[in-house]
């Protein structure tokens, strides 16, 4: 067993190392972090705008006015989250290279806008379709443009750095204020970067894809999100999160750096459909994972383990752990349980640790597919939100979301029960024999 674990850790550690020290994935992760406060701000107002039963309490026109008044909060943040991710990536990648990061962010944004469609189809009263110019479709800045935005931000930041390093800058004579010469020094790299993207846009307008966004969306984003929204890929992601944590490595941060673009794109598809009053397309989204699989007391849904400890714990070690882990666990921080139980490298817990989330993933998926629980509607709930409340919020203010989380806790609890019992007994006996030894030595 030890040999096997050693081999496995020798495989996982380099993967974690590679994924986390890769400058693009780091920039991507930090880019999402830049976007997060805006995403959550928008989510809060989606929740308030769709307050339960409100549509029955007030008149239809008052409800419509109420929703219209709050609409811009999420329309300017959550719905167009791609923009913030792009600025974040451009900024962070340029910062990584030691360049002027604010220009890196701005140049990434402009490059993305150059590649973005700038017309929308508009259906006139007599059913003909006209193209309206002077607009940027908001879907391009959210769900549909997510992958293009990420790639563009990487390439724009790289090109910008390349042109800065070429040093084809306009040199100002001595005596010119530094701020003035700095604004000129950014001019040439920015001009060259943006021109490159403009050329790409023009080339694509002569292909059947018409726009670069359409090209990336059809060839990369759509297949990947279709794959990512299925059960098999979701189970792989969930198992990887668990496996990394088993070796004491932060599972989500490693897996998310690959899956986040997919999960957020799926999430925003649901949000767009929700806002348009259409049927939600996806079960698996960012919130499916965060709220129902990971976020019940932390990875591995350890809130159920803490409850188990309170119910059956006789050993001092588990009781102490329960007291320590419960307050943090309510807010989905579970490092005390992971390192204290311990879960890491503990052969006894590997079975419930790996099996429980898989079963919960199935149950959650089918509870939603069968219509018992609404799909996640696209709001992003902060991961520290306590269980039940987070389920309620993630499913568009419906109690079934919270109830499903309780069912999930019960499932995890049942799977863990026998293993927790064995562990508790071992600890209890160890503590007892240690005490007896001490008593004996005192007597002598």
């Amino acid at each position, binding site marked *: 067993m030890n040999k096997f674990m050693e081999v496995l850790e020798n495989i996982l550690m380099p993967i974690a*190392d590679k994924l986390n020290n890769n400058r693009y994935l780091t920039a991507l992760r930090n880019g999402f972090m830049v976007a997060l406060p805006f995403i959550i701000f928008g989510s809060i107002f989606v929740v308030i705008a769709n307050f339960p039963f409100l549509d029955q309490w007030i008149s239809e026109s008052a409800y419509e006015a109420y929703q219209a008044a709050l609409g811009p909060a999420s329309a300017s943040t959550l719905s167009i989250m791609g923009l913030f991710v792009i600025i974040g990536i451009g900024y962070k990648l340029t910062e990584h290279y030691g360049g002027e990061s604010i220009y890196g962010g701005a140049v990434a944004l402009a490059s993305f806008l150059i590649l973005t469609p700038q017309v929308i189809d508009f259906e006139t009263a007599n059913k003909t379709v006209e193209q309206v110019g002077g607009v940027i479709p908001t879907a391009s800045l959210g769900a549909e443009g997510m992958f293009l935005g990420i790639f563009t931000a990487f390439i724009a930041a790289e090109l910008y750095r390349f042109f800065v390093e070429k040093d084809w800058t306009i040199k100002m004579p001595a005596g010119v204020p530094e701020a003035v010469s700095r604004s000129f020094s950014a001019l040439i790299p920015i001009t060259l970067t943006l021109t490159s993207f403009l050329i790409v846009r023009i080339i694509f307008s002569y292909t059947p894809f018409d726009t670069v966004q359409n090209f990336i969306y059809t060839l990369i984003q759509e297949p990947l999100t279709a794959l990512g929204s299925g059960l098999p890929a979701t189970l792989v992601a969930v198992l990887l999160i668990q496996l990394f944590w088993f070796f004491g490595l932060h599972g989500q941060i490693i897996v998310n750096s690959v899956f986040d673009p997919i999960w957020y794109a799926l999430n925003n598809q649901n949000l767009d459909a929700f806002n348009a009053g259409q049927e939600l397309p996806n079960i698996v989204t960012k919130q499916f994972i965060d709220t129902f699989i990971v976020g019940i007391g932390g990875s591995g849904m350890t809130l159920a383990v803490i409850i188990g400890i309170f119910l059956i714990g006789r050993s001092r070690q588990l009781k102490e752990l329960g007291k320590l882990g419960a307050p943090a666990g309510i*807010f989905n921080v579970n*490092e005390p349980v992971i390192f204290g139980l311990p879960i890491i490298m503990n052969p006894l817990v590997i079975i419930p640790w790996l099996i429980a989330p898989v079963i919960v993933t199935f149950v959650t998926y089918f509870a939603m597919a069968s219509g018992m629980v609404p799909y996640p509607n696209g709001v992003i709930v902060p991961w520290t939100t306590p269980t039940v409340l987070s389920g309620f919020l993630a499913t568009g203010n419906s109690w079934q979301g919270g109830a499903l989380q309780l069912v999930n806790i019960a499932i995890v609890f049942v799977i863990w029960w026998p293993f927790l019992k064995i562990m508790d007994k071992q600890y209890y006996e160890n503590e007892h024999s240690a005490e007896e030894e001490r008593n004996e030595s005192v007597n002598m």
Partner: protein
Amino acid sequence: MKHILLACSAGMSTSLLVSKMKEAAEAKGIEAEIWAVAQDKAPKEMERADVLLIGPQMRFMKKKFSKTAEEVGIPLDVIDPVSYGRVDGAAVLNKALELMGE
């Protein structure tokens, strides 16, 4: 005054440890500023720290942080998982002092 920096993924679980370490420092009569940050903030925060301790779940970041730590000239290490799980402030504080060569 000692400046002890802790880093984990979001700065949440290490901040749990920070409060325990502060208690331990007070009990020992050591004047120390102890604070926790998310991993992406760590390189910047290192400039005003005397030592960096990394949460064991982020131990794969050690190599990356080592470069910055070398530049600013501070020691760093990964927190021992057992002390981390027990939220053992005193043990981690001792580790920090040891690293600083006290």
